[in-house]
């Protein structure tokens, strides 16, 4: 590619070659000292050779990626970690003062923060539970071949590929008290229009329904992969043994789906825990602050109240939870790959 390949025959190319035999030979044939005019050129070329050496290949290839990630992800991460120990406010010019762990202790002692954690927990647990349930059901329904299955699958799988913005708009229209289908349907029984998002419980339900609609297909996709990987002869054997269907499910189907279900659970918990877009767009945290998730609260702290340092500290608390969950996720992935020889 960009670097001269190690096969270009030129005496300088071989200098950096790692094989000791060739090195010795080449050193012997080289003039003991290069003329000064060539030194610079050789230096550059020598550097290219050094960097292109086979034992450095891995490091060379990952360097651009790691450098980019460091610049765009890690550095800001360290910066906001630093900020979280100060009392910096992005809208003031006064020099920030170091105050140690004060932001963290303040946040941990703040009832508002715990309220947000409870709200987030409520949304995460109900939405993820719903996703697992619906996703599992969908997977069972779609596990067999039928006419135009590919198209039907697309209908079900599309929601998770949509942007939060469009999903939020679907559901805002759906919940709208004057135009929405939901309000119209309920008014058939009550005779009154119905504003789901006006009550705290309704607003939470509204978010959970939208989120579960969007992400149940994700669970379905994983479970489906498990279901179709069950070897058919197991079912045939069960048939011969006349095993009852629940037992067949528990001893044959479930073991194949178990690890994927766990992965789906972890993955969705991580993603739902950071939920920002959907809630922000559907309820903006309202009514009041009853649907404000922890991510939205951090956003408000940082960009509406300009308590930048406190927002960073809170963001770090979110990050901690996410990192713990991510390590568990990767642990399960590894276990699964090891047990299946993938």
């Amino acid at each position: 590619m960009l670097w001269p390949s190690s096969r270009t025959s030129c005496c300088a190319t071989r200098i950096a070659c790692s094989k000791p035999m060739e090195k010795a030979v080449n050193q012997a044939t080289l003039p003991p000292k290069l003329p000064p005019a060539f030194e610079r050129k050789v230096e550059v070329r020598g550097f290219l050779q050094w960097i292109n050496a086979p034992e450095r290949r891995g490091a060379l290839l990952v360097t651009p990626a790691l450098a980019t990630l460091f610049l765009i992800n890690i550095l800001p991460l360290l910066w906001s970690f630093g900020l979280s120990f100060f009392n910096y406010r992005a809208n003031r010019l006064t020099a920030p003062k170091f105050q140690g762990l004060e932001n963290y202790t303040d946040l941990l002692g703040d009832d508002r923060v715990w309220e947000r954690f409870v709200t987030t927990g409520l949304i995460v647990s109900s939405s993820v539970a719903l996703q697992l349930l619906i996703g599992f059901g969908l997977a069972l329904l779609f596990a067999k071949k039928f006419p135009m299955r590919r198209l039907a699958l697309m209908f079900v799988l599309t929601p998770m590929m949509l942007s939060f913005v469009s999903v939020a708009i679907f559901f805002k229209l759906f919940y709208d008290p004057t135009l929405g289908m939901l309000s119209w349907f309920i008014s058939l029984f009550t005779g009154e229009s119905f504003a789901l998002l006006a009550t705290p419980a309704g607003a939470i339900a509204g978010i959970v329904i939208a989120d579960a609609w969007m992400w149940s297909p994700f669970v379905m996709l994983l479970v489906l992969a498990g279901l179709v990987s069950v070897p058919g002869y197991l079912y045939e054997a069960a048939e011969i043994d006349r095993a009852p269907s629940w037992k067949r499910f528990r001893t044959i189907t479930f073991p194949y789906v178990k690890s994927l279900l766990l992965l789906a659970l972890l993955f969705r918990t991580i993603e739902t825990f950071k939920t920002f877009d959907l809630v922000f767009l559907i309820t903006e945290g309202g009514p009041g602050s009853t649907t404000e998730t922890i991510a939205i609260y951090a956003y408000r702290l940082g960009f509406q109240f300009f308590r930048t340092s406190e927002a960073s500290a809170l963001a770090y608390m979110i990050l901690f939870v996410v990192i713990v969950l991510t390590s568990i996720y990767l642990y399960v992935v590894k276990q699964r790959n090891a047990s299946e020889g993938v």
Partner: protein
Amino acid sequence: MASGFRTHDQAGPVRTFFAWLVGIIYFAPVFWIVLTAFKTRADALAIPPKLVFAPTLDNFRAVFFQTSTTGEVTGSGVWLYFANSAFIAGSSVLLALIIGTLAAYAFSRYPLKGNDTYLFVILSTRMLPPIVVIIPIFLVFRLTGLSGSYIGIILLYTGFNLPFSIWMMKSFFDDLNPEVEDSARMDGSGDWSVFGRIALPQVKAGLAATSVFALILTWNEFIFALLLTGPETRTVPVAIASTIGGEIGVDWGKLSAMVSLFLIPVFIVTFALQNQLLRGVTFGTVRK
């Protein structure tokens, strides 16, 4: 490639019926928006909701050709936002794909000391809540004037797409048979030509899947775009979101038309990539 859900069992008529019924119900919200896009203002507001109506293209015409004085997103603005979305997503995905594929190949073939740690950190940067990075990024962008510029948001999205590209491409490289590369090496090919002529052509499908997934993720991204794009670089999700802020006066027909247009690429991709979907949504961690 592992399809993830190919099966040979035939479903009975009852299951077929229910699967289709559920599929259609599941798709209803999307279908409803697309229908609304073709309704006149009166039809869109009708109670009870109208399923049968005379379709009109007025909403689409309004989205693209009407200039409005009320600050709504219409006319030339819409062209700009669609172009911005395509340009920003396209260039950041290309960058991330080039850098990411090289790194993925290295992680797969030349494991470094602490390979797994690197990969864990890389995945974590993808999993981390945007709010953690967005505060310092916002400050830096404000300081350097990158806020509202193309370069700023493209760089940011490159960093955002890179972990995804690395994990996805690594999973594709891991699937290859290394003996093919070894035998090419025996025949005297250098590392670079093994990579370029042997490994890369075998993962063409993977490159396509990875880039298309990354394109969709970037195309859909909202919060970074909300905070870090300016009037000139605004992307479609931000433009759409800005129209639903006020409770009163939302023109649902026009909004639906814009959302429908925004969704077209996503539909095409979901249909085309069905077999790679499982890998795509799990960042290559689950292949089958």
